[in-house]
């Protein structure tokens, strides 16, 4: 539907603007055609208002030859062609109307070559103006659409982020931690408080990292350490940990990248061993790359579950989206050890 008819108020505004154009044409006819004001108005106003509806076609012309997708030649040819036809129609209309005026009023509404070129010029100019306005309006509309699309995209990606985040904080981790606190409250109140603080610390940090894009590796390692501290309260001596940034503290890495791997190291690795084991999270840096390694002992005879691969698959797809083929993830098992190595290109820490 034509935007002018889309809302009631628009047509009134449109016709008001055209009334101004009508006055202009009337004045021109009165002055140049030597008709006098009365005949000028009687000729100019109805013609212009009728032409207002002809010029509505400019919107459709602008739709069929969009600025972005059409070549210059086509654009100019279409504009000139459409304005020429419309102006010619206006001239015919004017000729007929003047003839009738001449008949009815006996006024001397002569329609000389002078008047023809005046009306034609007016028609072409006004039509081109309408066309320009149409292009501006549709460009503005497109911009608004694009903005809305971008906004929707943002909302979607934020939702996805929240979903992954929610999936990342394993509810059983929370329930088991709360159960540990419940155990400590009577036997070791100070320990219960310490566990509450550890848990709160971990949750707060992982929520704030979830909204960040890339973070210094040191923060990611700190989070892994906090997680392992909480789990150590549950598993006791069975879980040991070693975290070493290897001089790569300042390198920027995607947030919460290591976290699911560290969680797997505990739940699918150390937790399956009677004697427990050591989870090692280490990093190293070369001039162009950062390498992160998570290592843990595992039970070669543990029951295989398909669920364990989800965390790793998420890490892979995230790295693919961020770095294309420039990041690598290698997971391997050997000699009773499970090892995940991630290598990403160095992104220097930006100076504020």
């Amino acid at each position, binding site marked *: 539907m034509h935007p002018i008819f889309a809302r009631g108020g628009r047509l009134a505004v449109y016709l008001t603007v055209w009334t101004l154009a009508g006055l202009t044409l009337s004045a021109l006819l009165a002055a140049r055609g030597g008709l006098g004001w009365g005949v000028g108005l009687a000729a100019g106003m109805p013609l212009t208002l009728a032409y207002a509806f002809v010029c509505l076609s400019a919107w459709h012309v602008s739709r069929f030859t969009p600025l972005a997708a059409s070549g210059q030649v086509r654009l100019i040819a279409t504009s000139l062609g459409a304005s020429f036809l419309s102006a010619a129609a206006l001239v015919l209309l004017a000729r007929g109307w003047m003839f009738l005026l001449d008949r009815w009023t006996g006024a001397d509404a002569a329609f000389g070559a002078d008047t023809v070129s005046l009306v034609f010029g007016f028609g072409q100019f006004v039509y081109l103006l309408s066309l320009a306005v149409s292009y501006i309006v549709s460009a503005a509309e497109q911009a608004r659409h694009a903005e809305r699309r971008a906004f929707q995209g943002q909302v979607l990606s934020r939702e996805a982020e929240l979903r992954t985040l929610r999936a990342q904080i394993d509810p*059983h981790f929370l*329930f*088991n931690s*709360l*159960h*540990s*606190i*419940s*155990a*400590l409250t*009577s*036997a070791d109140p100070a320990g219960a408080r310490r566990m509450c603080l550890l848990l709160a610390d971990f949750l707060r940090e992982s929520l704030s990292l979830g909204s960040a894009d890339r973070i210094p590796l040191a923060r990611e390692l700190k989070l892994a350490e906090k997680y392992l501290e909480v789990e150590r*309260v*549950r*598993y*006791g001596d*069975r879980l040991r940990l070693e975290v070493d940034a290897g001089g790569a503290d300042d390198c920027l890495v995607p947030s919460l990248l290591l976290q699911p791997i560290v969680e797997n190291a505990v739940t699918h690795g150390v*937790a*399956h*061993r*009677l004697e427990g084991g050591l989870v090692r999270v280490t990093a190293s840096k070369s001039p162009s790359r950062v390498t992160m390694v998570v290592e843990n002992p595992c*039970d070669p*005879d543990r*029951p*295989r579950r398909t669920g364990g691969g989800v965390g790793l698959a998420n890490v892979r797809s995230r790295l693919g989206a961020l770095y294309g083929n420039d990041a690598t993830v290698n997971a391997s098992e050997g000699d009773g050890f499970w090892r995940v190595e991630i290598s990403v290109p160095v992104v220097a820490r930006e100076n504020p």
Partner: protein
Amino acid sequence: MTEEQPLRVVIVDDEPLARGVVREFASRQPGVEVVAECANGFEAVKAVSELHPDLLFLDVQMPKLNGFEVLELLGRSVPVIFTTAYDKYALRAFDVHAIDYLMKPFSEERFAEALARARTRLAAREEMPVEDLLSEARPRTGPLERVLIRDGSQVHVIPVDRIDYVEAQDDYVCFKADARDYLKDQTMGAVEASLDPARFVRIHRSYLLNIERIARVELYAKDSRVAILRDGRRLPVSRAGYARLVKLL
């Protein structure tokens, strides 16, 4: 109602603090005696076989042997109350006639309720055919990945890919794995049903063979064949067994 004999309970959980919760709640209940605390399934099987407790508080997720595997190994009616942070095992717990299912963290009131339920159940002396119910519940979890064998208070865990073949012996079956024999009180039919039919084939009334161990099959006499394993051992193949083998390969 006064209990003359205390209720003897065993606590099984790999987390010391989680054992502490049960111990603490139990200590405030009259007529309850904690006779053992176990940090894993092996200790649990040992403790139950030696101490014959009245009730087991059993965690599900533990290293090496999970709670359900412990129950399967015990193979007799041990009244059990599961304690776990996971709700996904509730249906299976119901299948094995668990007395109750405590979701961590649980309150002392909820614990007392579970204990009262256990006393009622024990007073009624309900027999729970655990083994039947377990084998009924098993198909839902897919073919076995490991075979559990109890030898007195000792437990062997055999991953199925280490099994060479299974041989029927009177009332037992014998698992041949890692150059050792493991006897289990089970029927050949039950073993065959629990193992992956794409990997184990019944080549004979008395033999269930891991197909990865076959080197070749030779004609021995008319209508009678013999399977030769990679390590040279020879097993008889019946006519129906040969048909099954051909179909699989």
